């Protein structure tokens, strides 16, 4: 794994996380292109559409770095309308952006980068914290030249949001990419040693989109088959787990870790606390709760 490959992977994973977050506002009217590692010495914001609204949400703990999302004025107006549940034809079309539209752009980027930070935290095994969004407006390319602190590494990812060109630019310090390169190299080594990891990780590119069933098991019970077939509505079955015990996590029937149940927006979720190493013995099950 070279630093350039790690940068490309960072661009892909961050782009994917932003795409998922944007889809909650815009449906399928968003896509991103192939990440490009910007050669050292070239201006990082050369490719952005100008005039542009640029929102920066920095990583401030765990790792550091800038995450810039550049949008056209119309892109901001359309995104703000979508976030308010309005159609594209109801979006503002004036030359001036309102405070509410600029604030919507900042809030969208805040939510997008929070999702990306979560994904990168899981990969690096470190909790990454984000700072509040900083929103600026640039009339011409020369204004962008010294606007942000330059970093040794830059990745640029083209986006289309509601038919408007946008661009994600990641400003990546050396320490971040060293961590990223090491984490990805470890994952690749484990994948090479044991095939597809059962303890999480990154399988080969051709396998990454294969859907798998993931479920959490609260507990188990054993009983004679005679009792099992005679269970009636209202019967209570004791499970072998206490309320505070971790739940066991399975992928396609193989246990890969454990976690804690969370209630998020009235739906159950699991925070993964432990991932088994790929060499650890795993148990299988066909039961559990989907």
């Amino acid at each position: 794994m070279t630093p350039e490959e790690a940068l490309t992977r960072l661009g892909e994973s961050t782009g994917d996380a932003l795409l998922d977050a944007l889809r909650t506002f815009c449906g399928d009217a968003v896509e991103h292109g192939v990440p490009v590692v910007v050669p050292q010495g070239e201006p990082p914001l050369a490719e952005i559409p100008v005039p542009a609204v640029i929102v920066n949400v920095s990583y401030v703990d765990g790792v550091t770095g800038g995450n810039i999302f550049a949008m056209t004025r119309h892109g901001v107006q359309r995104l703000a309308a979508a976030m308010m549940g309005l159609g594209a034809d109801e979006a503002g079309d004036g030359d001036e952006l309102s405070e509410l539209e600029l604030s919507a752009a900042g809030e969208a980027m805040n939510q997008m980068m929070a999702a990306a930070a979560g994904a990168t935290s899981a990969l690096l095994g470190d909790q990454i914290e984000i700072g509040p969004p900083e929103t600026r407006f640039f009339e011409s390319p020369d204004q962008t030249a010294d606007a942000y602190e330059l970093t040794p590494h830059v990745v640029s990812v083209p986006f289309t949001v509601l038919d408007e060109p946008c661009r994600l630019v990641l400003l990546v310090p050396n320490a971040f990419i060293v961590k990223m390169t090491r984490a990805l190299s470890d994952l690749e080594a484990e994948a090479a040693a044991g095939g597809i990891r059962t303890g999480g990780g990154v399988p080969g590119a051709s396998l990454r989109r294969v859907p798998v069933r993931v479920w959490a098991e609260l507990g188990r019970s054993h009983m004679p088959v005679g009792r099992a077939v005679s269970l009636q509505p209202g019967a209570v079955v004791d499970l072998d787990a206490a309320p505070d015990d971790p739940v066991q996590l399975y992928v396609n029937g193989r246990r890969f870790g454990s976690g804690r149940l969370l209630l998020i927006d009235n739906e159950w979720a699991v925070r993964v606390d432990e991932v088994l190493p790929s060499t650890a013995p795993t148990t299988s099950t066909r039961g559990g709760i989907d």
Partner: protein
Amino acid sequence: MARVLVVDDAAFMRKMLGDVLSKAGHEVIGEGTNGNDAVERFQELRPDIMTLDITMPEKDGLTALREILTLEPAAKVVMCSALGQESKVLEAIKAGAKDFVVKPFQPDRVIDAIGKALA
């Protein structure tokens, strides 16, 4: 119906939350844009309940939550956070927040969280 203080650094989120709360019959009695505002406005207005963003400039929502609960242990606070900040959410609940809402939020979820926290 409750007197609500809304604290979020994004004007957009304050408007969205304010609209949802007003439509449900609550009264938004004040707004704040950072953690310092949250503490000051809480002392000044003594709301029945407040919503509090986590990632904010100057002072974050978690720090503000702890200060508010030191001032008034019975304060009712519902946290707002983006997906990916689950660890912060857990910290907030452990610190004494009544509930949390994940952004982008559904209006029903906001009203439900406020209603349960007030109950």
